[in-house]
């Protein structure tokens, strides 16, 4: 049956392999269906979310590059305005008069205003005025001789490299301009802008987690927005410097000196040839994508879980409804009626109603059939009983009368031996006729059953078999000397006849035990033989097969009419036992 179902199904759905279709449950189908619908939706929304996150990332990267360019321009502008102020100072009238003391005071006032320091150096690099020292104190040679020489040679403004001020031992980076007297370079005037750098950076208003670095023309770090004390004065890494110098502006990924991976944008400051770098940590840059991804995974996972749960619940519901139908079908198959409960699904409800209807019809026809069978059996038994009685009482009596008549005329034939012989043969014929009549009547209906009851009829019947066959028959009857309803007695007797005939014909038994007893509100008939038996098998319908095997279907129907049941027990070489129970 199972293989038949598979074939039918595989013919129905061509696009799935038969093996798979026959094994997938309704639940699996529903889950699969929902996945097929939901998965592309989820994938689509994932693409959308990721794309917008990447967009955001691009916007941020662009803005970083933009800010780096803007920062370089701003610093250029500030340096330009500082240069103008230094140029103004360089044209101080005190140079014409040669009163350097007055110049010191003027420079100190400016330095104070700018919160920077001003240094005046002669062309050989010897400091002449330093606003960080009192006028007249001995001053050292400038530490950045190269810068002084550059101004002396070019007679143009210039920005020095980062050095330490030998007077104050502070970081020092100056805008140097030439001071001309009578058309000749007399001094080099420098303003230290190092103290101004922090304010310049603050003016850029960058987010705190961004890293702003300014390097001088040599590649030395002159300012840094994070951990300045640690890194200012450090030389840049050659590989990094190479990339920074390769173009006026650009970007590249980098791992900062503190070990933070970042996206780095840079731009050159035109006047000072500084390089302004703005680094944005990957954490910040990729934040949107990461947040979107985790949000996506979380919400997608939740949605998927909810959907799957829903699918399982729906699948369960359908499967439940279908297995309910299976149960109903089983019940209907047994010929019983059902009152289906609502399944909540229109189609299965409809099937259940159809099953109910089918069950009603089946039940009704089974009942009609059973009634018909009952009537048939009753009529048959009645008819047989009547014929048997007729044979006995009417025909048999005439036969007796006939024989009596023969006896009566016997004396009259005493003188004629031929007639006497003839008469004797006739009497013998009548005798045979009587015996035959009796046998036919018995087979039609054992009148002992009606006249004497089940116990004696059964005893008698088994005794005859004991005489006729080599079977050893053990009989135990315990009926409390009561007469059972006629229908039950007849059924039991006929069942016994069938069972014993089976034993004699098929079992090859030496011994048969018959137990007939009343108790616990029922009458039991057990027929047990020690014959060859057979394998009932272990299946659920093994009993059914056994009943068919022994041809006891009619017996069971007969028993069903009086509410009785038939059970069978057998094993190869272990004999067969038939159990009959009829409730009283």
């Amino acid at each position: 049956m199972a293989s038949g179902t598979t074939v039918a199904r595989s013919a129905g759905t061509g696009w799935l392999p038969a093996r798979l279709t026959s094994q997938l449950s309704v639940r699996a189908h529903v889950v699969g269906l929902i996945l097929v619908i939901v998965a592309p939706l989820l994938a689509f929304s994932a693409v959308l979310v990721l794309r917008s996150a990447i967009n955001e990332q691009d916007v941020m990267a662009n803005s970083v590059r933009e800010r780096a360019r803007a920062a370089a321009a701003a610093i250029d502008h500030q340096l330009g305005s500082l240069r103008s102020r230094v140029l103004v100072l360089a044209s101080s009238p005190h140079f014409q008069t040669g009163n350097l003391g007055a110049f010191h005071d003027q420079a100190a006032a400016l330095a104070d205003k700018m919160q920077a320091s001003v240094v005046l150096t002669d062309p050989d690099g010897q400091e002449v005025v330093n606003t960080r020292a009192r006028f007249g104190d001995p001053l050292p040679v400038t530490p950045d001789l190269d810068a002084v020489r550059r101004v002396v040679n070019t007679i143009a403004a210039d920005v020095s490299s980062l050095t330490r001020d030998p007077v104050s031992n502070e970081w020092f980076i100056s805008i140097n301009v030439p001071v001309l007297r009578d058309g000749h370079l007399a001094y080099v005037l420098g303003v230290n802008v190092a103290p101004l750098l922090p304010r310049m950076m603050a003016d850029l208003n960058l987010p705190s987690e961004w890293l702003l670095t300014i390097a001088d023309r040599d590649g030395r770090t002159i300012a840094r927005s994070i951990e300045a004390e640690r890194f200012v004065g450090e030389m840049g890494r050659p590989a990094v410097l190479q990339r920074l110098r390769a173009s006026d502006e650009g970007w590249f990924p980098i791992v900062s000196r503190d070990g933070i991976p970042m996206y780095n944008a840079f731009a050159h400051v035109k006047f000072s040839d500084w390089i302004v770098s703005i680094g944005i940590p990957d954490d910040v840059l990729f934040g949107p994508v990461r947040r979107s991804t985790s949000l996506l995974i979380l919400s997608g996972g939740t949605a998927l879980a909810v959907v799957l749960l829903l699918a399982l619940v729906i699948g369960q519901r359908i499967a439940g409804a279908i297995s309910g139908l299976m149960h109903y079908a089983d019940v209907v198959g047994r010929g019983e009626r059902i009152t289906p409960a609502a399944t909540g699904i229109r189609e299965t409800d409809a099937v259940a109603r159809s099953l109910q209807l089918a069950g009603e019809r089946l039940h009704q026809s089974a009942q009609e059939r059973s009634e018909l069978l009952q009537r048939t059996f009753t009529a048959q038994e009645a008819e047989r009983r009547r014929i048997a009685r007729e044979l006995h009482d009417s025909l048999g009596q005439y036969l007796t009368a006939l024989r009596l008549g023969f006896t009566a005329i016997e004396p009259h034939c005493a003188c004629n031996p031929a007639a006497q012989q003839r008469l004797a043969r006739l009497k013998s014929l009548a005798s045979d006729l009587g015996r035959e009549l009796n046998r036919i009547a018995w087979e039609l209906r054992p009148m002992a059953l009606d006249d004497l009851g089940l116990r004696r009829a059964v005893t008698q019947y088994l005794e005859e078999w004991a005489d006729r066959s080599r079977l050893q028959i053990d009989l135990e009857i315990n009926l409390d000397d009561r007469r059972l309803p006629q229908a039950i007695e007849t059924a039991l007797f006929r069942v016994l006849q069938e069972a014993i005939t089976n034993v004699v014909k098929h079992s090859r038994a030496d011994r048969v035990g018959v137990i007939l007893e009343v108790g616990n509100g029922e009458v039991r008939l057990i027929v047990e033989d020690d014959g060859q038996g057979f394998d009932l098998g272990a299946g659920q319908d093994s009993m059914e097969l056994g009943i068919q095997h022994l041809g006891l279907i009619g017996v069971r129907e007969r028993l069903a009419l009086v509410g009785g049941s038939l059970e069978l027990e057998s094993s190869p070489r272990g004999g067969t036992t038939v159990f009959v129970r009829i409730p009283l």
Partner: protein
Amino acid sequence: MVDDHPVVLAGLKALVGADPDFTIVGEARDGRTALHLAMQLAPNVVVLDISLPEMNGIELAAALRTERPDCRVLVLTVHEERAYLRQLLELGVGGYLLKRSAADELPRAIRAVAAGGTYLDPAIAGKVVGDLGRGRSQSQPGESVELSDRETDVLRMVASGHSNKAISGRLNISVKTVETYKARAMEKLGFHSRVELVRYAADQGWLRE
């Protein structure tokens, strides 16, 4: 003489009446009249058929036994089944004669019964045997037999007519186990069939509980 069939009754009367030893004191064609007449006429022998209207031969024989114990009964019937014979012998009838033998044997049978003896038709006399297969001795095992509680449980249920499957369900053990217990216990008791077990169980009083 009791027979519901007039032709037969006439034939019987002719047969018996021809014998000078017998006098027919009364005749009846149904059981009730027969009993009535027997009470009135007090015959030595009543010859009766089994199939009778009103009150059948078996009932009549039973009634005669209580009402007229001195009256001997000879059953004359077409029934060859020993079930009838046994039942009637239990009721104390003196003779059982088949109608097909009546023409030859009736006078002899009446004579035997009247003399207080028993007459059985030779055609079925051979069939009367003792209780069918009652090997009572077999169902009395030695006192030394000891059954385990489980074996006793199983045997009790077998004896009360349960199938192995039903027992396995009741005792919560497998059918195979039931078979094993049953086989072992039956072997201990030396029984070969369920019938012996049922008799043993009845003796042990198992079935009353």
